[in-house]
């Protein structure tokens, strides 16, 4: 074990002394993230206002048919969200759910009957503070986590505004009644007036009452989470980090064949050190370089872009397992290649293909279904799923699927790479 650590530490030191490698491992992902953030306006507008996604298909069933239900439909179809959402009002719930299940749309919003009345009692009706409000249902498509997250965020913001208006109205009427400013006989009429004002309010800031809100959104198909804003940077930064993680692992593979070429591999094998120890040391060194790269990128983007990556343990687990899977790919490429140049060539091609296919450049939900299925062979897709879950407030407990996917991928690739290496008689000759 001591020699494995020794070889790994040496490789780590060499990797971080190589200026070209540092540029590609650390500077490039930072700069690309920054560039994409500038293009999508993340740095010039508040987080969550720009997503880089467009025309997200969403279906809406409006059973409420009253002011708030209609307002929500209007919001989803508004000119402001025109580019981002493609919201269609439908009637058939079964067909709509099927469309979600078949991955034709990113989600289904069901505005139940009585939604408006549960928030704003009809003229002359009594206000029941303790009454359970009717919930808007959002049937999310788990295959499109980012698109679903955006729709969910819009719904939560709408609910926040509704709740804000409702509570503010109630508080105002109550305060005026207790202070004697408003005679009890005029309270109902004043409340109706407040309701009218509230319905027309559009540009309120998010309510400070959000935490105590009794209005809630029921999300089906994705774990219920507390209200979060979807930050486009939270998607781009992991995308770039995972893209360049593939560079780092192929760099590690290249160093393995470079050692053979510069005869240090052969020299190691004339010391009391076995080929298995050398191979394990090289793999571990590559793995450590990848882990360190992600730690620096995540830490750096947190500081520079004020980006919240989410639950610490979840992020740590994702770093460890995404790097494990990516290192498996790096070793497999190395096992097939004959020269360091071949590793670079194959590695760069695979890095780009995985980047596109795995969602590092384009949201996976915008790609054809067969690409989304194929994307599961990339660490990028699993990793991005995980980081998106964390970005939306998930914890380590919610990462089961991505973590299992990455573990299985890494294990299979390592076994395959070791088998291929064991047949490589040319390594030391």
């Amino acid at each position: 074990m001591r020699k494995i650590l020794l070889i790994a530490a040496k490789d780590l030191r060499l990797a971080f002394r190589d200026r070209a490698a540092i540029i590609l491992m650390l500077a490039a992902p930072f700069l690309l993230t920054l560039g994409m953030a500038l293009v999508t306006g993340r740095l010039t507008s508040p987080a969550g206002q720009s997503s880089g996604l467009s025309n997200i298909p969403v279906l809406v069933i409006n059973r409420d048919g009253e002011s708030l239900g209609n307002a929500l439909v209007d919001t989803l179809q508004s000119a402001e969200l025109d580019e981002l959402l493609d919201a269609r009002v439908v009637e058939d719930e079964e067909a709509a759910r099927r469309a979600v299940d078949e991955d034709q749309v990113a989600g289904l919003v069901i505005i139940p009957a009585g939604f408006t009345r549960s928030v704003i009692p009809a003229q002359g009706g009594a206000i029941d503070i303790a009454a359970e409000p009717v919930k808007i249902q959002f049937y999310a498509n788990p295959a499109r986590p980012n698109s679903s997250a955006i729709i969910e965020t819009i719904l939560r913001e709408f609910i926040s505004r509704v709740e804000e208006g409702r509570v503010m109205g109630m508080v105002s009427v109550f305060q005026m009644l207790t202070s004697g400013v408003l005679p009890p006989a005029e309270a109902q009429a004043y409340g109706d007036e407040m309701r009218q004002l509230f319905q027309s309010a559009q540009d309120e800031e998010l309510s400070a009452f959000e935490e105590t809100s009794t209005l809630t959104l029921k999300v089906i198909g994705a774990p219920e989470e507390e209200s979060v804003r979807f930050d486009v940077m939270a998607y781009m930064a992991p995308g770039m980090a995972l893209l360049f993680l593939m560079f780092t692992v192929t760099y590690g593979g290249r160093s393995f064949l470079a050692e053979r070429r510069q005869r240090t591999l052969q020299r190691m094998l004339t010391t009391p050190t076995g080929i298995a120890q050398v191979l394990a040391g090289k793999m571990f060194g590559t793995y450590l370089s990848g882990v360190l790269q992600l730690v620096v990128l995540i830490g750096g983007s947190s500081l520079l872009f004020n980006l919240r990556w989410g639950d610490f343990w979840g992020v740590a687990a994702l770093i460890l397992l995404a790097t494990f899977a990516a290192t498996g790919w790096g070793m497999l490429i190395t096992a097939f290649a004959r020269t360091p140049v071949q590793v670079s060539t194959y590695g760069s091609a695979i890095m780009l293909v995985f980047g596109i296919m795995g969602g590092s450049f384009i949201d996976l939900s915008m790609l054809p279904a067969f690409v989304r299925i194929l994307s599961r062979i990339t660490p990028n897709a699993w990793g991005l799923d995980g980081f998106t879950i964390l970005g939306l407030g998930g914890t380590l407990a919610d990462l089961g699927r991505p973590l299992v996917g990455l573990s299985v991928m890494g294990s299979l690739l390592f076994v395959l790479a070791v088998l291929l290496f064991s047949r490589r008689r040319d390594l030391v000759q």
Partner: protein
Amino acid sequence: MNPILQVNQLVKRYGDLTAVKGISFEVQEGEIFSLLGPNGAGKTTTISVLSTLFPPSEGDALIAGHSVVRGPYAVRRVIGIVPQEIALYEDLTARENLQFWGQLYGLSGRELKERCEEVLEQTGLQEKANQRVKTFSGGMKRRLNIGVGLLHRPRLLFMDEPTVGIDPQSRRAILDTVKDLNRQAGMTILYTTHYMEEAQELSHRVGIIDHGEMIAIGTQAELVKRIGQRETLVLQFGEDQSAAAIIPQLEAMSGVQQVIAENHSLQVLVNDAEEILPAVIQVCTAENLKVRTIQIQEPNLEAVFLQLTGRALRD
């Protein structure tokens, strides 16, 4: 003396190519033994098998009693190797390189630190210890390359053509180091080279290897004795001239043992060079060949190789 190395019918094949064809020899503890042969003779393959880099196809070798086939790890603890290529990490400093390789040889703690400093002193690199190897000259890299092989004080050191491609000054320093290691530390050295002068200067005994076969083995005196008191007459012609035409005439002369053409020169193995020289010049003049230089070489390993193989060492 006890043999520290016993090579027995060693064969190494790469597919259809047999690089080493059943060689056998012994190296005694405390001696410098040179494997002399041209490029491609099988010297590096032999060293690679003996240093357990890969197993022989047939045969075996015992190093300090350990078989390279059955006990490669035990062998690796006894041997040190200085490969022909500079096998160092260019982005690590000299000291970091020594520390890394020392730890692979099992050194640690104070012992590792002391040995690194000793080797730095021995190779004259103390002042450059904290500089990255990529900033070193070729000679400095060669010295460090040797230093790595000495770290763990091996009983048997393999040096595979350690002076290839370096300046005369560094070459001289390396040859002196080899002699010092043998004389002062009592280290046994198996040295491969295609430079006859190096083998002559360093070795207690020499094995001449060609096309994977050991064609002669012994002390210099023993080997030279095999070709009698013959001298070699070396004639150098102009670059635009071919001496091939006069070879039959020279071979027909009395006292000429062998004639070998090499580029624009002829090597003529003769019984008495001074006696035959006028006749040789006469033949050249008759064929309008301008002789640029004439050299008479005393019997040496080059002449031995020439007689045994019909080729010069540089071929």
